C-alpha cells in the first residue's frame, strides 16, 4: 500500500467570504483532500504558528489556544490555497510570509482571484506561488494540485524529523523523488475516476520510459 493511500493531503484554505469558503471546501473534499478553512491571512499564520502574539489585532485570540497550539504540531499542511483580495492581509501578503519562513516555505501556495489581472498573476508567481486560479475554481483545476502536494509529502518522508531540508540533499534526492512521484500519482489516479484518460495515458508513457518499474497492469491498487 502506497503512502498516498494511508494519509490524505491536508489543505489550508483561506478566504474572507463564507460562500467562497464553502465552495473551496467542497471542491477540495471532492478531490479527496482534508480541508481546514480560515477567514483571514492572519488566522492562517496563527494556525501555522507563524504569528507573534504582539501582531494579534483580536484581543481575544490567543496563540495559546489548544487548537492553534496543537494544529501546527499535529497537522501537516500539504498546500495553502488562498484568495487574493482579502481585507487586511491579502493573499499575496500571506504568500510572502509563508515563503519567508524557513519552516513553511516548502509548502506550495496557490492563489485564487475573481479578477484576471496579468500583473497580479505574474507578481504572485514570481513570489513563489505554484498556481494562480481564476474563480470560480473548478474541480478540473484542483487536479493540478496533486503533483505539488506530493512533493512536500515525499520531502517530509525523506527528511529526518525536526531537521530542515538542506539544499544538497534535495538535489541528490530529486531523481528518486521524481520516480516515486509518478508511481504514487499513478496509484492515486487509479482511485480517482474523475481524472481524465489523457492524463492517465501521459502517466503510462512517463512510467514506461526506460525506468525499471512494474508494468502498468501489474500495479495493484488497494481500495
Amino acid at each position, binding site marked *: 500500500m502506497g503512502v498516498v493511500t494511508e494519509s490524505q493531503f491536508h489543505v489550508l484554505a483561506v478566504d474572507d*467570504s*463564507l*460562500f*467562497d469558503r*464553502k*465552495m473551496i471546501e*467542497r*471542491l477540495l*473534499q*471532492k478531490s479527496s483532500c482534508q480541508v481546514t478553512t480560515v477567514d483571514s491571512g492572519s488566522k492562517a499564520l496563527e494556525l501555522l504558528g507563524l504569528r507573534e502574539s504582539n501582531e494579534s489585532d483580536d484581543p481575544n485570540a490567543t496563540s495559546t489556544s489548544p487548537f492553534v497550539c496543537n494544529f501546527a504540531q499535529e497537522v501537516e499542511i500539504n498546500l495553502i490555497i488562498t484568495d487574493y*483580495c482579502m481585507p487586511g492581509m491579502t493573499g499575496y501578503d500571506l504568500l510572502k510570509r509563508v515563503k519567508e519562513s524557513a519552516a513553511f516555505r516548502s509548502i506550495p501556495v496557490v492563489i485564487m482571484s*475573481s*479578477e484576471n489581472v496579468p500583473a497580479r498573476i505574474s507578481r504572485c508567481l514570481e513570489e513563489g506561488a505554484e498556481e494562480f486560479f481564476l*474563480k*470560480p475554481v*473548478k*474541480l478540473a483545476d484542483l487536479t493540478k494540485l496533486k503533483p505539488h502536494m506530493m512533493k512536500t509529502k515525499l520531502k517530509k518522508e525523506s527528511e529526518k524529523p525536526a531537521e530542515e531540508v538542506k539544499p544538497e540533499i534535495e538535489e541528490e534526492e530529486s531523481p528518486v523523488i521524481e520516480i516515486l512521484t509518478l508511481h504514487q500519482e499513478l496509484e492515486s489516479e487509479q482511485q480517482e475516476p474523475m481524472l481524465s484518460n489523457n492524463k492517465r495515458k501521459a502517466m503510462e508513457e512517463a512510467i514506461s520510459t526506460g525506468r525499471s518499474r512494474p508494468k502498468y497492469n501489474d500495479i495493484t491498487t488497494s481500495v
Partner: protein
Amino acid sequence: MQRQVALIKQSLFDQGYLDEQFIELEELQDDANPNFVEEVATLYFKDSARLISNIEQALERGSFDFNRLDNYMHQFKGSSTSIGASKVKTECTMFREYCRVGNAEGCLRTFKQLKKEHATLRKKLEQYFQASK
C-alpha cells in the same frame, strides 16, 4: 415529479438564468453531501440580500461613492459567477462599468434591473429545489 424537476431546470438554462457553472456545482453534490447545491444557493441568497441592502443604502444616501459601490458589486459578481447566476452576473458587470465611468444614473437603472433578475432567480430556484425534494 422527476420530469417536473427536469423541465424547471431546462427552462432555467434555456432562458439564460443559469449557466454551466451551475452544473459544476451539481457535480460536487453526492451521497455524502446530497443538499450541497441548495445549501450553497441559500448561502448565496443570504449573502446577496445583504449586499443589495448595503448598495441600496449607499445609493439612497445620494452621494455616489463609486469605489464603495464597486467593492460591493465585486463581491456580488463573484458569488453570482460561482453559482452560475448568468443574468445577475451580467447586470453586475454593467453596474461596475457604470461605476468605473462615474455614471450615477446608469448605476441606478442597472441596479433596478439587477434586483429584478435576482428576485426572479430566487423564486425559480426555490421552485426547483422544492420540486427536487
